[in-house]
């Protein structure tokens, strides 16, 4: 198909804001960070090209262990979110009708009306030693001294799953909604049990939504900062903390930049792997999200 010059110009003008936005906010900083990550300090204020920042990552166990832990925990959080969100999405998409459906979606959305920081602080109030749950446990006699529920992996996972739930429910409910009721009924009619229908009809149909939700939740989780820091405390050990420390505390920007690139690489690799394993393409997945 050929375009007349006027059309081409119009198209360019229409796309210009998007291109500018992408260029200025995403591509440009990343190119900058990429360049930065390959510069080593050879003397005060003197920098040279080198892969030292990346080598540092592999030689210092704290760094790559935190990295691996972040990746593992994020996958765990994503899986937990999926397991929790699936029945909720199934209910919203297939059982709830009219106002109940709208109410339920609103209920999922409600926590996002306050900032992530405030939401996380809310969890702290519940979980800390002098918090609501600790107090309740003591007053019903299940504990005889204050219970510290904060600053462990459980608290971090709880906070992250809570934060990711909505972003899993929406694409899932979207995908499940488009499943024709008669197809599910046909699944039962031909002798399928609940489990067979779920496994062979509902889940395959919802696959694009599942993958979309997982990608979003995984990205949000890997890149999260406030939740692991606040709920995990010293034990949080999230890779974003290392990036923060390099940039802000140590003032070692090249090292921080290298970590940033590694994190980007990690999420891209895992998303790619997820897409390959489920046989989904990025295109169909984006349509669901």
């Amino acid at each position, binding site marked *: 198909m050929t375009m007349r010059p006027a059309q081409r110009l119009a198209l360019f003008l229409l796309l210009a804001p998007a291109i500018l936005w992408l260029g200025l906010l995403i591509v440009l900083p990343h190119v900058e960070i990429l360049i930065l990550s390959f510069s080593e300090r050879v003397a005060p204020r003197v920098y040279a090209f080198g892969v030292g920042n990346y080598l540092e990552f592999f030689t210092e166990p704290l760094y790559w262990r935190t990295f691996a832990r972040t990746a593992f925990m994020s996958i765990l959080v994503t899986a937990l979110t999926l397991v929790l969100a699936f029945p909720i999405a199934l209910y919203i998409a297939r059982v709830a009708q009219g106002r109940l459906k709208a109410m339920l979606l609103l209920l999922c959305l409600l926590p996002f009306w306050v900032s992530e920081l405030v939401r996380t602080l809310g969890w702290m109030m519940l979980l800390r030693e002098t918090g609501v749950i600790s107090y309740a446990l003591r007053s019903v006699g299940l504990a005889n001294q204050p219970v510290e529920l904060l600053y462990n992996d459980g608290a971090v996972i709880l906070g992250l799953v809570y934060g990711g739930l909505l972003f899993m429910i929406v694409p899932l409910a979207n995908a499940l909604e488009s499943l024709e009721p008669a197809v599910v009924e046909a699944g039962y*009619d031909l002798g399928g049990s609940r489990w067979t229908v779920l496994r062979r009809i509902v889940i395959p149909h919802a696959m694009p939504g599942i993958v979309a939700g997982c990608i979003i939740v995984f990205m949000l989780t890997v890149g999260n900062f406030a939740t692991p820091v606040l709920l995990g405390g010293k034990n949080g050990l999230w890779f974003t903390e290392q990036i923060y420390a390099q940039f802000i505390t140590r003032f070692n920007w090249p090292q921080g930049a290298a970590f940033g690139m590694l994190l980007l690489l990690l999420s891209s690799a895992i998303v790619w792997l997820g897409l390959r394993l489920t046989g989904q393409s990025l295109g169909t997945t984006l349509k669901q999200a």
Partner: protein
Amino acid sequence: MAHSTDLDIVNVTKRFGAHAAVDDVSFSVAPGEFFSILGPSGCGKTTLMRMIAGFEHPTSGDIRIRGKSMIGVPANKRPVNMVFQSLALFPMMSVGENVAYGLTCRGVSRAEAEERAHRMLERVGLKGFGERRVTALSGGQRQRVAIARCLVLEPTLVLLDEPLGALDLKLREHMKIELKQLQGTFNTTFVYITHDQSEALVMSDRIAVMNQGKFEQVGSPRELYHNPATPFVASFVGETNRWQGEAASASNGAISVRLPSGAVVQGQGRAGQGALAFVRPEAVALAQDSGALGNLPNRFEGRVSAVLFDGAASSLLIDTVGFEQPVRAVLPQVGPLAGIEVGAPVHVGWTADAMKVFAA
């Protein structure tokens, strides 16, 4: 033990709130029979069928398959399979997997299920389509997959809910015959829902005419067509002329009806004060002079007001003295009246037997 009926519906009622979608319906279907339920949109056909399949539960009454009550038996445990109006093929599976699905649900090994699905596809004329995606099939092929998916399970009963509704006219005509042949070769009992009287008449051994949740009449296509039991059946099944009047005199089943214009027609049936008279278009005899109709009790003079040419189903509308609406008759395609044109004078007549009269 062989049972003399495959399906017994006993006084089944289904209410949605105060509205009775199915109202005290009873019937039986014999093994190997092609049984149709014919009725206008919203009369409760789908509701009745969904109760047989197990997706709705009757408010009262019993559903028995080969003598066994199905009340409380879930849909996936009933020896009944359904072809949905939308077909509801599984888009996430290939054609072969669609057909093998029911078998694998029953615990048939994968290899055997594939083999049997393959053979079934061959029998419905879809040899070599096993690997195709269902989205890559034509309407008629999808239809056959939906039926093959049921038949491969060798169910006691196959339910079909207006399965031809989505097809174009030509294909629908073709599938009608094909469905009937399939049913014959598999010798499976079919319960078929439709609102299209021609589908029901062509395919069925017996038809139940349903209206507002109730059965009006159950009978063979010919019985329904020639001896309708109610005015609804008379007007719903097949083309017909319908006149309203009042009963003038009655004796022994013969009845005369006076139309509002004062004209009197002779028919068969029973009526109270008001009467409805029905005559099939093909029962209306036409002639150029009244002498040819001399022995008919109903004879009138008219003028052709429209020629509705539709091949073998062509008809004539004749403005007739004494009738408010034109009389519909079959267009003669041979003989002296073959080339009849609008405006031509013509004599019409019919026997008393051909006119069914009901109380209005």
